[in-house]
C-alpha cells in the first residue's frame, strides 16, 4: 500500500523554541534574507511558530502554534497553478516542482495558511555558510515558489535504504528535520496509512483538530489542542 505521509502537532508540548525553524533552514537550504528584507515580508520559513497572546495583561498567556504546509488532500494551491508546478504526489505530498514554476504566485494567494514562499531575489549565503548547504536539496533561483516538502529527500533516502536492505520502513526512524530537532517531541511524523504508526494513532486523538478545517482542504496535519491548564491554587 502506498504511503500517506502525515504529521501530528501537539500544541501542549510546543515551547516555541523555534528549533524546528532552524533545523528546517539548515536541512532545506532555505536562504536567510537579512533583517531589512525580512521586515518587508520577504522572510522564508517553511515552518514558523505563530505566537498568540491570550487574555489581557497581567493575566496574559503566550501560546504557540507551529505552522507548516498542511499537505492538504484538496490543496487549493494546486489547481490554480497554470503549469502543474504544484500538484499532489501519489504519497499524498503536496509537491512543488521548481523547474516548472514560472512565478505567478497564485498558489501562495490560494493557500489560506500562507505557507508558500517566494524567491524575490537570487538566494545568497555569506561565506563560509555556503559550505553547510545540503547536497541533497536543490537551490531555488529568483522567481520561483517554494514550500515545505516534508523533507522529501529524507523520505526518498529512507525508502531506497529500506529497499536495499529488503525490509519495511520502521515507524519513527524516518523524520523530517523539524520533528527530529524538536526537543519536546511536539512534532510526530509518519505514515497515516499504517494504522499502527504513532502518527496514525495520535491523529485519532479526541484532542485532534485540523487548522482552518472549515475550508475543506483536508489537511494531513492534525493539531492536538492544549488541555485545560489550571493554576495550582485554583484546585
Amino acid at each position, binding site marked *: 500500500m502506498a504511503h500517506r505521509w502525515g504529521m501530528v502537532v501537539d500544541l501542549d508540548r510546543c515551547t516555541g523554541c523555534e528549533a524546528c525553524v532552524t533545523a528546517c533552514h539548515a536541512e532545506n537550504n532555505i536562504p536567510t534574507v537579512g533583517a531589512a*528584507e525580512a521586515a*518587508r*515580508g*520577504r*522572510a*522564508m520559513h517553511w515552518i*514558523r511558530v*505563530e*505566537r*498568540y497572546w491570550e487574555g489581557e495583561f497581567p493575566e496574559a498567556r503566550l501560546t504557540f*502554534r507551529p*505552522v507548516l504546509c498542511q499537505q492538504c488532500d484538496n490543496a*487549493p494551491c494546486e*489547481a*490554480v*497553478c*497554470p*503549469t*502543474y508546478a504544484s500538484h499532489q504526489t501519489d504519497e499524498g505530498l503536496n509537491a512543488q516542482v521548481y523547474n*516548472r*514554476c*514560472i*512565478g*505567478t*504566485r*497564485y498558489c*501562495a*494567494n*490560494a493557500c*489560506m*495558511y*500562507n505557507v508558500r*514562499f*517566494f*524567491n*524575490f*531575489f*537570487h538566494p545568497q549565503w555569506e561565506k563560509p555558510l555556503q559550505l553547510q548547504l545540503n547536497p541533497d536539496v536543490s537551490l531555488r*533561483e*529568483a*522567481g*520561483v*515558489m517554494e514550500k515545505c516538502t516534508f523533507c522529501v529527500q529524507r523520505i526518498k533516502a529512507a525508502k531506497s535504504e529500506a529497499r536495499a536492505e529488503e525490509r519495511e520502513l520502521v515507524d519513527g526512524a524516518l523524520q523530517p528535520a523539524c520533528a527530529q530537532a524538536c526537543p519536546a517531541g511536539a512534532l510526530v511524523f509518519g505514515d497515516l496509512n499504517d494504522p499502527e504508526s504513532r502518527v496514525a494513532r495520535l491523529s485519532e486523538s479526541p484532542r485532534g483538530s485540523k487548522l*482552518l478545517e472549515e*475550508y475543506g482542504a483536508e489537511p494531513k496535519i492534525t493539531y492536538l489542542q492544549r488541555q485545560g491548564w489550571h493554576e495550582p491554587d485554583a484546585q
Partner: protein
Amino acid sequence: MNRTRNNPLADDLVRPLFHTSVWFYGAVLVLATVVLAGAAAWGYQLWYGIGVAGINWPVFWGFYLTNFVFWIGISHAGTLISAILRLVNARWRRPVTRCAEVITVFALMIGAMFPIIHLGRPWLAFWLAPYPSAREIWPNFRSPLVWDFFAINTYLTGSLMFLLLPMIPDFALVRDRSTGWRRRIYGALALGWQGTTKQWHRLESGMQIMAIAIIPVAVSVHTIVSFDFSMATVPMWHSTIFGPYFVAGAIFSGIAALIVAMAALRKLLHLEAYLHPVHFENLGKLLLLMSLLWAYFVFAERLTVWYGNEHSEMAVFWATQRGEYAPLYWAMVVCNFVIPFPILALRQLRTIAGTVVASFAVLIGMWLERFLIIVPSLAHKPLPYTWGDYAPQPVEIIIMVATFAAMILLYMLFSKFVPIISIWEMKVGNQPHPPVVTEAEDELAGLWRARP
C-alpha cells in the same frame, strides 16, 4: 443629387493623415520618453528580480495585477459597446465605433502585458500556451490563469478583426487619395478593395456575425478575470457575485475611457462636426446607468459580507470600511458614485465638460476598486499571525505611468495613420432614406449630416 458632395467629409476625416503639427511630434517625443522609462524600469526588474517591486508575503499580488484588471476593464469600452450599438442599429454609433474599438485593442495589449511583467520568471510565460513540447507537459486547464490566456487571446483576435475589417474600405479611400509611399502602404493595407456589391455584402454580414460573437466573448473575458480571484478561498474574493460585478465595472470604466478619448479627439483633431454633444449625452446616460449598477453591486457585496459576519471576511471588511484602507475605499465611493451621479443625472450638467469630469472620476475610482479588491484581502487572510501590508515601489509606479503614456501614444499614432472615424459608415449615415424608411426617421437623423 450629387453623391460626391460627401467629399468634404472625407477631406475632414483624412486630413490628420496628411498634415501633422509640430505639437504632435513634441507630444510623441514626451510620451515615448515616458514609455522608454517604463521599459527601463522593467529591464531593471528583470535584472535584479521581482523583489524590487513592493509585493511581499502575504500580499503576493499588487500594482501589476491591479493594472491588469484595470486595463482589461478599459478594453470593454470598445468592442462590446460598439457591438451592442451595431446590433441594435443605433444610428448615433457611427462616429463612435472606431475610436471605441481602438481603445479595446490597445488596452487589451497593455493589460495582457501585466501578468507577464508580474511573473517571477517572465521569460517562461510561453509555458501557458498549449503546444507539444519536450517537457511533455501541457498547461493545467484547471487554472484560472490558463482560462485568462485563452479568453484574452480569443478576445484580442476578435477585437482586432472587428476593428480591422471596417477599416479596409477606408484604407482604399486613402490609397486613392495619396501618391508615392503612402499609396503603396495603404494600397497593401486595402488588400485590393474595390467596393463591389459582393464585397460590401460580405463585409456587412461578416461584421454582423462578429458583433454577435464578440459580445459573449467580452463578457467571458472579464468574468474569467474575476475568476482569478473568486476561485481562491481568500476572504472577500470567494464570491459568486464577482463575475457580473467585474463585467459591470469593466463596462463602467470602459465608457469613461471612451468619453475621455472622444473629447480629446474632438478637441485636437477638430471633429466638432462629427462628435456632437448628443454623443456625450448618450454615453453619459449609459455611464449613469453603470454607476447605479456599480453602486448596487457594491452594496449587495458589502451587505452580504456584513450580514454573514464571518470573522476572516469581517477583517477585510473593516480594514476597507474604517481601517487602513478606508481613505482609499471612501475615495472610490466618491469617484464612482458621489461625483458622477449628480453630474450625469442632471441634464444641465450632462454636457461634454460634465461627462468628461465624471469620466475622469470614474477612471480613478475604478482603478481604486481593483486595488481594493486585491490588496486588503491578501493582507488579511484567515490566520491573523500572517497579516501584512503593501506599499508600491518606484518600479511599479513607473511601469504603471508608462502604460498610461503608451495608451495615449498608441492612440495618437493610430489617429495619425488611420481615419479615426469610419468614413464609409458616416456616408451610409448621410444617405437620404428612400420613402419607405423616411417615416421611421427619428429626430437624431439630422445629426448624421456632416454638412448642413
